[in-house]
């Protein structure tokens, strides 16, 4: 049914992360956690999967002695996201 869809993106939380990051320059881990209502542990795992796929760039810094993780979508991530949306549209058109 969804054979053409990218398995990295075809997961609720990972798709949510990518959808948030597609419209912004960069976002903090706390922002993504707030918007997705995910747990820190689960989010961390999914962020790492996206990072390993080369879809997002993760930077770890310190701000006022607290760790700060910033995520940014990569060119490869944008291309993959656009292809995913395109495939969805094709599927929906075919269904109609």
């Amino acid at each position, binding site marked *: 049914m*969804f054979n053409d*869809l990218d398995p990295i993106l*075809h*997961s*609720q*939380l990972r*798709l*949510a992360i990518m*959808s*948030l*990051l*597609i*419209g*912004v*320059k*960069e*976002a*903090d881990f*706390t*922002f993504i956690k*707030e*918007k*997705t*209502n*995910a747990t820190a542990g689960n989010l961390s795992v999914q962020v790492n999967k996206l990072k390993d796929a080369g879809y997002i760039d993760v930077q770890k810094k310190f*701000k*006022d002695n607290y760790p700060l993780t910033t995520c940014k979508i990569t060119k490869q991530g944008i291309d993959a996201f656009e292809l995913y*949306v395109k495939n*969805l549209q094709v*599927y*929906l058109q075919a*269904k109609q």
Partner: protein
Amino acid sequence: MFNFTQIIMEKLKPMTEQESLQLISSMIQKAKASYHDKGISTLLWGTVVTIASVTSFLERQYNFDIGFDIWLLVLFAIVPQIIISIKEKKSTKVKKFEDEVIDIVWMVYGISIFCLVFYQNVIPQATQNLLKQDGWELSKHFINNTQPNQVIKPFIPSVFSLFLVLYALPTLVTGIVKKFKPMIIGAIICYLAFIVSCFTASKYDMICGAIAAISCWLIPGIILRKRYLKSKLLNV
């Protein structure tokens, strides 16, 4: 309405194409709605420019001097602005593409305002010197010859009108990019104030300036502040 929490709970269940699309649009909307300008900078500049303009008008209208140039307030307001900008940058959880562009537009606006102030202060003397080099000087001739001609120092007619054009520019850009109507309306009022100022005596240009500052920054600043405080209350 798409319930993301529910979907996360049911993450073992495969997503349908409809759910995928709903999730994408819901997250894009969430990212869009995440911006909340605290309105402090807008309020600061709206207040400072309004006070300076009204004071300038009152000084000219009632022939008194407060003892210092009120426009120095604008210069001093840069210090709290820098502190506000640093604090806001530190507390921002998300950076949007348009924020960077808008910040650049306001920075260029600041530089342009100082260039205009420089122009306003330098041009009269520079013009006088250039005229002198050619053996000229400007004089005032009375049409009915009731008084002898008087030498005058060159001046820039209605220079404050040019400030009004500059006030409107970053305000309109921000209003359009952020889809924030109060700033768009403010910028339109500012352009109208510019047209009016072209036909009024320079002391009344100050009133036009005050109207511009109130409509461009003070009122939008109050609206932004209210929105921010409301959103903060909802998130607590």
